[in-house]
């Protein structure tokens, strides 16, 4: 039984492909051999604890930081050698909230930004500005976190780039605005073929939009797979176990999380359902329930797994 989580996707072509990407900040290794793969048209959500390297990975893809090792390909191009070509095809929402020029007014900043992207759709930008409730006369430096975030989203989306790199896109937005943003994003995806790479803690929200997931820990991916595969392969099993239960030997590698209430134990197990049930039954446990995990719980299970 496969107790190893998939690390590579077998679809292609990949809009984003990182091979052994490394980045150090002084003594700290932010990325230690990242093998990221984002298929064309995918909505890929990158999850991981703080400091795992998610923001760094996105910055390397745009050549905002130089890599210390390995290489990255975006649309088959090297972000360092073909930087402008890569950045022209990407809409980026950064993690930070000060973006653009604080002394400029929002409307002026949008016109400034539009100069750099000939594919800017002014009508769409206006619809988005209306939907986001953006005031063009305010100075960028005076915007609240949430208002600034909305401006960044507009800047990234209005030129309909083939790739969206979103670093905590809903950070700072109130729940209503977060919900509305997801709806606008869904519409955006419906209108034109777009690949999206989202780095976020709010896994629950993007669950319906995402179709691939990558779990980043300690600078490298500990799992990378389509959501459908995760949904099928990672399940929560509830079983009653006898008094002197010795455990299910065959499952040892695949158990990701374990909890219990009295004689009922609950596992999150990665593996083929029929096989896992068989193993459990063979060890003397009575399987009561098998259920898939919501993405948030699945990610928690994957993150809490001891390597």
């Amino acid at each position: 039984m496969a107790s190893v989580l998939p690390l590579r996707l077998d679809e292609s072509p990949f809009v984003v492909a990182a091979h052994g990407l490394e980045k150090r900040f002084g003594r700290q290794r932010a990325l230690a051999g990242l093998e990221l793969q984002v298929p064309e048209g995918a909505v890929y959500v990158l999850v991981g604890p703080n400091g795992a390297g998610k923001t760094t990975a996105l910055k390397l893809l745009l050549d905002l930081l130089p890599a210390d090792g390995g290489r990255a390909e975006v649309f088959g191009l090297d972000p360092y050698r073909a930087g402008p070509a890569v950045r022209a095809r990407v809409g980026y929402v950064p993690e930070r909230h000060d973006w653009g020029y604080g002394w400029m007014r929002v409307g002026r900043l949008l016109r400034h930004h539009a100069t750099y992207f000939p594919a800017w759709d002014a009508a769409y930008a206006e619809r988005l500005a209306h939907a986001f409730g953006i005031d063009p006369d305010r100075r960028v430096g005076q915007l609240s976190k949430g208002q600034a975030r909305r401006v960044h989203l507009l800047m990234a989306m209005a030129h309909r780039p083939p790739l969206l790199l979103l670093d905590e896109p809903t950070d700072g937005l109130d729940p209503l605005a977060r919900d509305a943003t997801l709806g606008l994003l869904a519409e955006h995806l419906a209108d034109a073929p777009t690949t999206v790479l989202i780095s976020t803690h709010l896994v629950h929200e993007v669950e319906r939009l995402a179709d691939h997931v990558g779990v980043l820990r300690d600078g490298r991916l500990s799992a990378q797979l389509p959501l459908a595969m995760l949904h099928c392969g990672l399940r929560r099993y509830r079983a009653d176990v006898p008094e002197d239960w010795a455990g299910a030997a065959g499952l040892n590698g695949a158990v990701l999380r374990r909890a219990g209430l009295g004689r009922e134990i609950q596992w999150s197990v990665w593996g083929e359902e029929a096989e896992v049930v068989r193993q459990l039954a063979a060890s003397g446990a009575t399987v009561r329930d098998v259920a898939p995990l919501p993405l948030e719980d699945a990610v928690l299970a994957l993150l809490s797994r001891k390597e």
Partner: protein
Amino acid sequence: MQLSINPADARPLYVQIMDEVRRARVLGTLRPDDALPSVRQLAAELRVNPNTVAQAYRELERDGVVYVRRGQGTFIAEAQVDGTARGILARGVAERALLDAHRHGLGAGELIEAIRALAREPATSNPGEP
């Protein structure tokens, strides 16, 4: 049209969408030749990946539940007389009920007996039951 889908459900999202359309059809909320919302519209409403909606619509078309008129949209197909739609729905509900029963340590027989008992009780009977 209000669909309720739940990512935590065992069924994939596109299957849930399909089930909701079937449910609406059986209940009569959607009648033959009624238009379904566009992929774009439904995806935006549900905050769901448009590919998911597209997949649901494709499968529904394959199952004959809906038909597509190019450039105009997706519409509910004529109701089948043989009650297949109702049968599929019933099966889905039964599956979920059985799973729930098993989770509580009940067998199929106990469940069926409980259902029958409930159905007999006048106060809790389904008001819409034929």
